[in-house]
């Protein structure tokens, strides 16, 4: 989970303009690597002075559920990394209410503090972004 930013100059990369980046997570963890590699992007993104949000909808909400124990499948448990996001000043985590309800998930089931929004609010959040990255 650590990697150089690719040797670019931050000042040059930022160029003064702050953009709104949304990382959209719709896939469950472990069956595929998208959730893990998405998180790797988010951690790198933290080094750039941009406005970062994460959205969890559909099966993406399963990514941040507590109690993941991956020893039995011999795959790395990356879920604790979500707890590290706060230290990178990434605090805007939006979870969709309808997606939670379809899976009987409550806010207390999550590893990290999140903001629960409904589908209409999620649509507004998506609409207000400059860049949406989906994995």
């Amino acid at each position, binding site marked *: 989970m650590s990697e150089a930013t690719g*040797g670019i100059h931050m000042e040059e990369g930022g*160029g003064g303009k702050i953009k709104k980046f949304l990382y959209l997570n719709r896939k469950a963890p472990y069956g595929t690597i*998208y959730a893990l*590699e998405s998180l790797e992007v988010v951690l*790198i993104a933290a080094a*750039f002075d941009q406005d970062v949000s994460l959205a969890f909808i559909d099966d993406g909400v399963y990514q941040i559920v507590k109690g993941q124990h991956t020893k039995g499948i011999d795959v790395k448990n990356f879920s604790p990394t979500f707890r590290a996001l706060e230290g990178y000043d990434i605090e805007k985590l939006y979870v969709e209410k309808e997606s939670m309800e379809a899976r009987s998930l409550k806010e207390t089931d999550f590893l990290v503090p999140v903001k629960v929004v409904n589908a209409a609010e999620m649509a507004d959040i998506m609409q207000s972004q400059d*860049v949406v990255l989906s*994995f």
Partner: protein
Amino acid sequence: MMKFGILINEGPYTHQASDTAYLFAKAAIEKGHKVNRVFFYHDGVYNSSRLTEPPQDDRHIVNRWQKLAKEHHIDLVVCVAAALRRGIKDENLQEGFRISGLGQLIEAGIQSDRLVTFGD
């Protein structure tokens, strides 16, 4: 004139993602836009293998990106972390591609007018 950044998340042939991205990039260039960078992430890193040898009557996805990039100065960047765990290294990297960090993806998001993702 717009600057487009492109993110490709899937490997060649298996998913249509790289094909669609290529035809999108070509159309953008034909319309007078600029494609400044294509970033290859997840299985997308496989698009850069110089060992790729499709059947003779099939398109050559790797070389087609190489050619388009050369003619139109597109920066083809392969994510180092994704590449290492998938066996893509300088040793089997096609000329015209370069391996670098994820920062290059964020940078493409910042510097392009639009970042368009193609994946599964």
